[in-house]
């Protein structure tokens, strides 16, 4: 369980950003979370709420956009989205697809501040 330390990093980052943008309060943090990021959504949401206590983010929402794994299929010669991170095979032609294009994101994309 490293979601608590991830939540604290998000809060630290958001606290700096809100000051930089001249705000005083964060209403929401938007986060991209890849299936291969190694971070569990529910555990992160739970940790986030706890970690926000007594910070400028108290009461804010963490809005998570889940990003599935997108690979490059050398046979189809195009991007394909995997249904599961357990099977790195092209969903169309079953070619092994080790080349990951998206799905490792753990990125704060935007803040709603006031």
């Amino acid at each position: 369980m490293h979601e608590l330390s991830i939540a604290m990093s998000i809060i630290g980052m958001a606290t700096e950003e809100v000051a930089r943008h001249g705000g005083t309060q964060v209403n929401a943090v938007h986060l991209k979370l890849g299936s291969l990021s190694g971070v569990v959504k529910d555990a992160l949401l739970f940790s986030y709420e706890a970690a926000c206590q007594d910070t400028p983010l108290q009461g804010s929402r963490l809005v998570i956009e889940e990003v599935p794994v997108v690979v490059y299929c050398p046979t189809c010669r195009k991007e394909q989205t995997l249904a599961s991170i357990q099977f790195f095979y092209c969903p169309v032609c079953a070619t092994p697809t080790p080349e990951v294009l998206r799905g490792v994101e753990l990125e704060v994309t935007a803040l709603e501040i006031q």
Partner: protein
Amino acid sequence: MMSSSRLVEVRQNVLKQNDALARRLRERFAQSGVYVVSLVSSPGAGKTAFLEKTLARLRSRARVAALVGDLATDNDAARLARTEVPVRQITTGTVCHLEAAMVERALEGWELGELDCLFIENVGNLVCPSSYDLGENMRLVLMSVTEGEDKPLKYPTIFNTADLAVITKIDLAAAVEFDLSAAHKSIQSVRPGMAVMEVSAKTGQGMDEWLQLLGLRFSSQA
């Protein structure tokens, strides 16, 4: 007042501090000519035994050292120190994985230019270490035959981020009716094309192949 709320774009990687530090470490390792291998596995998969044998066999041909991470105790460092190579313990307290900053701190005072190969044994954990780059050149994921063939399917992320899978305690495979082909299939399913080694630190089986592969990787870098 909610009405005054505005949206600002940020686009920042949450792990950017660790990633930046890992990049710096990787550059430092490259400049010093030291090849860095990290090891991850669940607790008890045999990382320390594997490393012990690796260090003992390498030390006559290369200048090697190891960092070893655990929540508590320096038992592993004491074990590895018997191989008479420089070893340092990183005690993480309650942290379930190593981070680049811990590696950097543990290296203080070591002359990296005097090393050919550095091993970093992570805390026994197949989940959290996957998110943290340590600046290593090669990440090994170990699984023992007593853990079950589907371990990679249960922990796909760590297997996906590794460069080489090592199946340990292979001498016990028959006793525990380990299905090797099923294990290989699980590994290839989560990381197609990944090289896999089958080893026993106890009998030495597979250790020549492992050392040969390691030698090839680090001489191709030098």
